[in-house]
């Protein structure tokens, strides 16, 4: 498996650290309550198919990435900079 880092180009999977579901981009407010924090930290859609995940180009440029990937075929359809995604969410 290779990922197309927007900064560095196509790189081997071994250069990347997997964080998990991109739900981690939407951090709840401190006082959002137990259910919101449980949802953020633990509960997952865990889809068999398209998913959006946070990866870090740990052994490369260090950028955090949002990877759109199919969990059944391992096909990667998009890699974006997490900072861009976060700005678009604001």
């Amino acid at each position: 498996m290779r990922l197309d880092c927007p900064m560095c180009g196509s790189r081997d999977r071994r250069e990347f650290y997997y964080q998990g579901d991109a739900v981690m981009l939407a951090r709840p407010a401190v006082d959002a309550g137990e259910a919101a924090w449980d949802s953020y930290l633990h509960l997952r859609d865990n889809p068999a198919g398209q998913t959006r995940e946070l990866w870090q180009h740990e052994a490369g440029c260090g950028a955090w990435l949002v990877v759109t990937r199919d969990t059944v075929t391992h096909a990667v359809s998009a890699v974006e900079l997490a900072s861009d995604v976060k700005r678009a969410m604001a």
Partner: protein
Amino acid sequence: MRFSGWRVLREGLTGNKGWAPHWRDAEPKAEYDAIIIGGGGHGLSTAYYLAKEHGLTNIAVLEKGYLGGGNVGRNTTIVRANYFLQGNSEFYSHSLKLWEGLEEDLNYNVMHSQRGLINLFHSDGQRDAFARRGNSMINQGDDAVLLDREGVRKYLPYLDFDNVRFPIYGGLLHPRGGTARHDAVAWGYARGASDRGVDLIQKCEVTGIDIENGQVRGVQTTRGAIRAKKVGIVVAGRSGQVAAMAGMRLPIESHILQAFVTEGLKPCIDHVVSFGMGHFYISQSDKGGLVFGGDLDFYASYASRGNLPMAEHVMEAGMTLMPMIGKAKVLRSWGGIMDMTPDGSPIIDKTDTKGLFIDCGWCYGGFKAVPGSGFSFAHLMATGNHHGPAAKFRLDRFRTGTGLMDEEGTGAQHNLH
């Protein structure tokens, strides 16, 4: 049909014409007292103990593929009770006791072989950790023996003891640990359940869960609607999809774990051995194949196959530990879909829907838990009360933060187990 030496002899002399199918391939009825979704090891053992321990025989196991076609048919077959934390410790201890009586109980040869499991350590710190684990196992009533370097050499003379980076300091021997024939466990439980009247329904995929006013009413399947007041979800890596049918999100992410087997060789590895470098463990099957595996690939996956970096890492670890296996040819590799929880421990609990129960989150350790999980889940489904040894496997421990069981001590976070 009971198996016995006498029976084998008689069949051998009469052309083996008397053997019958081990279980009935049942057609779904319109209604059952209880439905188990998932005909794997845990689902079949749940059905068996519901019938045997609780007299519930009007039940069905629904399996979308064929019985035992999931993780119970694709694992590295290790059976052990060497857990450290309260909650896990008593559960796996109970499960190992069930394993020890399983063949007699099921009248089925599951080839349970208590050949001993040796976890190697390679530093003073690792020795301390394993000594502590061993004490915890002994306190639980199980067995553990701390071996020094020469003690390990007696059992495993073929290891590379003088590896520069990972010299062998010793190992923790768990004499009652070992392996079992994985498929036979599923078949034995299937036969035992079927004989007691349980309907085992294959090629029957659940497509919906019917809930009215917070009470489960049954399921929709590819073979029609089936009513039941109690439904148990036991679907391992597919837990997320099935739970979603009941409107639930679970603290589970499905990951890929690879394993490998070589061509058949003469007996050379007599134990289950794990390398303290990271994740590498190996045993030899009764057919002679070396069965070994490593860690997760570490990304969410339903592909049932992994990528090369982890395969390469596992081979490197094997060659570092026991260079003698270098000429063995790998015949097969495969990947299982692991239902990973944030703390690496399982869930056996009720849900917010009345009558709907869930047994999941076995991570990469579900095989040895098959008897204990079925026993405890059957107890919960039949009585509505948590079963002692599994009482800490609560679904809400992540939300409340109470009772997390993180054996590795790395934190209750999805990507750390």
